[in-house]
């Protein structure tokens, strides 16, 4: 009558390995950028400008992925750029998740005026165009890392709030919640001990998706020069600079783009994989 033999130690799977591997690689790159970078990411060398990557004619040693129009090494700039990308991904998405999910659980579980206030706030919030909102915010706060993080939190908490509220409501309607109540558990206790564990898989997936989104938002803001100052390399900044010379030196824009693409993809795939492992029903 126990249906299947228990098999918790399911294989991690290729998807998890690849996405986790790429993110781990980025993390290490971030930590050891000063050691492994072949060049100073800011050093300009006009005699070495627009050098092609290593497999093409005209390649010059140690500029493995070529150089941009000011002669800065693309690989080194990507490695250093990962610092900003990962920092924003981790801090901004975690804060967004905590704020959005907390409000979502409260709204979904308590309902009534709590839900009314939070949901209307979300509705009003979502009526603002997000990019405009971000630009406006940064105009007020000034550029810089903190501003980007705050902008992401302020724009994106509604995404969490909506989804988690709905999930909490559907969990709250389950019989196990009524049973817990009849058994004498207090309302707050039911929320924390019965409902939150069942909403957690959804939160994890949203969190990793949000990390990907945060990386993109940061890139967008760098692209329009609203991120941190141009002194420090960012992927978005590189894409923006590479745009002007795309016909002469495509590598300046393509490599940061590929990195960005792989990173965002890895975050979302990692989230899917984690969900499968977290969710007791799918496990």
């Amino acid at each position, binding site marked *: 009558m126990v249906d299947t033999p228990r098999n918790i130690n399911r294989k991690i799977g290729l998807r998890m390995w690849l996405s986790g591997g790429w993110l781990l690689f980025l993390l290490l790159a971030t930590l050891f950028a000063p050691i492994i970078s072949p060049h100073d990411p800011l050093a300009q060398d006009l005699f070495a400008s627009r050098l092609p990557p290593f497999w093409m004619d005209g390649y010059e040693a140690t500029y493995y992925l070529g150089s941009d129009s000011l002669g800065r090494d693309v690989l080194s700039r990507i490695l250093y750029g990962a610092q900003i990308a990962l920092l924003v991904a981790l801090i901004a998405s975690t804060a967004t998740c905590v704020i959005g999910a907390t409000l979502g659980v409260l709204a979904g579980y308590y309902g009534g005026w709590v839900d009314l206030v939070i949901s209307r706030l979300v509705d009003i919030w979502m009526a603002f165009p997000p990019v405009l909102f971000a630009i406006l915010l940064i105009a007020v706060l000034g550029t810089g890392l903190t501003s980007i993080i705050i902008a992401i939190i302020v724009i994106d908490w509604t995404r969490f709030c909506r989804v988690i509220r709905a999930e909490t409501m559907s969990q709250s309607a389950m019989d196990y919640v009524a049973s817990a*109540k009849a058994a*004498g558990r207090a309302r707050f206790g039911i929320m924390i001990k019965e409902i939150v564990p069942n909403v957690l898989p959804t939160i994890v997936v949203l969190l990793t998706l949000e990390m990907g989104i945060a990386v993109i938002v940061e890139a967008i803001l760098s692209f329009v020069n609203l991120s941190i100052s141009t002194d420090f390399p960012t992927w978005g900044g590189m894409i923006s600079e590479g745009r002007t010379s795309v016909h002469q030196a495509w590598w300046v824009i393509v490599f940061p783009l590929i990195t960005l693409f792989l990173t965002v993809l890895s975050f979302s795939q990692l989230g899917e994989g984690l969900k499968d492992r977290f969710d007791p029903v799918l496990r």
Partner: protein
Amino acid sequence: MTAFLSIRNLSISLQNGERILRSVNMELARGEVRGLVGESGAGKSMIGKAILGILPRALKIDEGEILFQGKNLLNLNPRELRKEIGANAALIPQDPLTALNPSHRIGRQITNRLVDILGWSKGDAVKRTYDLLDEVRIPDPKRVINSFPHELSGGMRQRILIASAFAAEPKLIIADEPTTALDVTVQKQILNLIGEMQSRHGTTLLFVTHDLGVVSKVCQSLSVLFLGKVIEDTNVFSFFDSPTHPYSKALLAATPKYTDPESDLIPVSEEILNSVKEEVVQLDLEWSNGR
């Protein structure tokens, strides 16, 4: 002497004023097994939920009292109610598939309640859980205790819910259609099990169901509910021998006869339904005039 559980004049309505229960009266003696019968929408589950204090938010109690061991549950504040109900009453829910928390292992779900809410020691709670699983005849309790709900069949889960309901030796158990979600062969086992557990523990049992066959097997007395109104309140023998209300008679006649598969199904006649409905309309009119 006051009854163990007595419901007096209980009226419940939706926020928009539509009435769900119409001055329901019911008494249960200590150790009694009473069936609460009615078609879907008659409000039978709502009585059970009102007793346990788990009515959906959209419903409000207009008047009446629920006296449980002499205390009116409707006058207690949420904290007192939790204490009173948590220690003395339990629910066997309808759908075993959603009544166990999918995130927690079975053992933890039973013991947590004993430890967190009733203040048992962990060791006692675990021992009690093993005894209970044994009592509801679950093979290999060790494995089941470490399982998640989705790893068990519906019948197993309902056994666990029964075990869990009896865990703290409650004086009152409300079984809300505990066999409806199960297939027929498992239904019989579960019914027998509930009956057996009830007589061994001497628990008072309110058995909510729409199945008269189930009532005849498990219950001593029954209340028939129609349109939120108790139309018959009697013991099982006189009900099946000589029902008094026309609706009850029609219900009994409508029960399919498995011994004679060729016989036609007899629906409850429009005439009877309409006469009760008229009665109810009259009642509601008086009710709204009285406010």
